[in-house]
């Protein structure tokens, strides 16, 4: 498997994972590479919900959108193969 394929695969899974978390009206609050684990079976695990918050309503959506854009920036760097730590 080429590194490019693997980066894309990981990035897609991370994107999906955060989308699922946001669906439950939760923002993680500390999106960074150190809080994302890639397991031996290449599954993705989101960790460290210490700064997480439950958000709801239109104000909550603002927070969710903000975090989604943070996630997108991180994933763009992963997809481009740039250092992301």
């Amino acid at each position, binding site marked *: 498997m080429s*590194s490019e394929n*693997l*980066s894309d695969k*990981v990035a897609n*899974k991370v994107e*999906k*994972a955060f989308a*699922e*978390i946001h*669906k*439950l009206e*939760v923002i993680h609050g500390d999106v960074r590479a*150190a809080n994302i*684990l*890639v*397991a*031996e*079976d*290449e*599954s*993705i*695990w*989101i*960790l*460290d*919900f*210490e700064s*997480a*918050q*439950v958000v709801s309503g239109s104000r909550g959506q603002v927070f969710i959108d903000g975090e989604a854009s943070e996630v997108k920036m991180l994933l763009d760097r*992963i997809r481009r*193969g740039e*250092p*992301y*730590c």
Partner: protein
Amino acid sequence: MFASNESLATGGYVLPSTLSQHYRFTISHVLYWFTHLTETTERVVERDLAQLIRVMDRYQTKPVRPPPPNVTNQPYTSPFPQSSNTGAGGYGQYYGNCTFSLEPIDELLLDFKPWLAESRCGGRAFRATLIEGNQQIVVKSWDSYKHDSSRRDNEVSIYMRIQSLWNVCVPHLIGKGEIDFCHSLFLEFVKVKLIVVEFLQ
């Protein structure tokens, strides 16, 4: 350090033979020898201190099964709210459509050795073994002299809210409690694929 070899003994202490034969050795020689010993001896880890750690104020996540339906002609409706926050995605495959709740338990024992380098998972996280079931877990601890339990409790409440993602993209919350002077929570251990980090960077 008492002598174990009489030929090397001088005044009750072990010295290298080259020094013990030298009649004008000084304290500097001895200090030099101790430095040499620390460099050449393998690091000694206090493994014998290990005891089973008893967790205080213990709570563990347990699946709550809906009661079996009565045999009637009426369609059965679950007494539990049917939200999206059920175990459909995570443990749903094992426990059916049930939610998890955090319940007090009588005893929680851990094999927990935070002083070992191999137990450290970074930050506040340490590896440990749950005695019941011999399950590997991660213990996340907050020093109660510096933090109250609000951070731990917030994290636990978030894990309970996103339980439909347990074992999907979020580790399974096992429980919470107090270990000595630390507020702690216990999570499923995830074995990391380190090679991916090299690929990605």
